[in-house]
């Protein structure tokens, strides 16, 4: 974020407080859900959704990504693509040495 006038900063501070409270609430939701002992696939999906929402809030507001320069979006898009690629690498182990689904 570029240096802004005091009014804009005060408005931003209010959004930081809202984000902060939301993050705390989501932390308690994710812990509470874990005590429900849902079946694993549902538990993992729900926990990942909550974590992604929390991470997006941090990135968008605390890291000012909602109002950032294009070059940073470009860097992050490339990073996101390679991040997904790395995360998908373990799925290669679904194949046995003979090249079939194992």
């Amino acid at each position, binding site marked *: *974020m*570029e*240096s*802004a006038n*005091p009014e804009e*900063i*005060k408005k*931003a*501070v209010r959004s*930081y*407080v809202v*984000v*902060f409270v939301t*993050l*705390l609430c989501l*932390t*308690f939701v*994710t*812990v509470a859900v*874990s005590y429900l002992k849902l079946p*694993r696939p549902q*538990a*993992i999906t729900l*926990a*990942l959704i*909550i*974590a992604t929402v*929390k*991470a997006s809030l*941090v*990135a968008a*507001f*605390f*890291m000012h990504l909602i109002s950032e*320069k*294009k*070059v*940073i979006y470009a*860097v*992050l898009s*490339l*990073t996101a693509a*390679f*991040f997904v690629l*790395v*995360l998908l*690498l*373990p799925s290669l*182990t679904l194949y046995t040495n003979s090249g079939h689904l194992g």
Partner: protein
Amino acid sequence: MSDTVIPYMVKPHPITGLPNGKLGIWLFLASEVMLFGALFSSYVLLRAGAPHWPPIEPGEAAKLSSELLNVPLATFNTAVLITSSITMVMAWASLQLKSLPKFRIYMGATIALALVFLVVKYFEYAHKFEVGHFPSHDNFYGIYFTMTGLHGLHIVGGIVVNTYLLTAGSKLWNTDPEHFANRVENAGLYWHFVDLVWIFLFPALYLL
């Protein structure tokens, strides 16, 4: 001040529209995403390849991660890191509002909260070691210590940089306030990233 001035340290570079430091910290964070990404990928591989996760101890019933690790302490630590993230962004906002004393309070709080996180982590680790759960115990503890250990080192790094900005580094405020605010913003970007990693580590290791 030396004779050679590095260009675009404060003013945006005409091509990127950003001061060089900010682009630099984002490129660094991109490399950090790949570093932690490789570890998350390893975690998925170890977990998917195990007949049970966490692995079952010989002669014992299957347990959940939440029964092996201390969820209340980790929840507390999650709240500590989230709080340190808002104090960090408030430290930057205080500089935008031209108040160095307020910056000092918020930056001091950020460092204090980071230390609280490390103290809690120390007690968690100490308890694991007491009962003989070292990284070599099994894949679960191996990846747990590797990921939380690397994250902990990032917390230490953040404390060092933030302490510099709070003490000797803050002299820059008197000569070049915009440059100093940029440095605080960049340190903040790193700090929020460390918080962001924990947001994924916490459910992955403790809750699922």
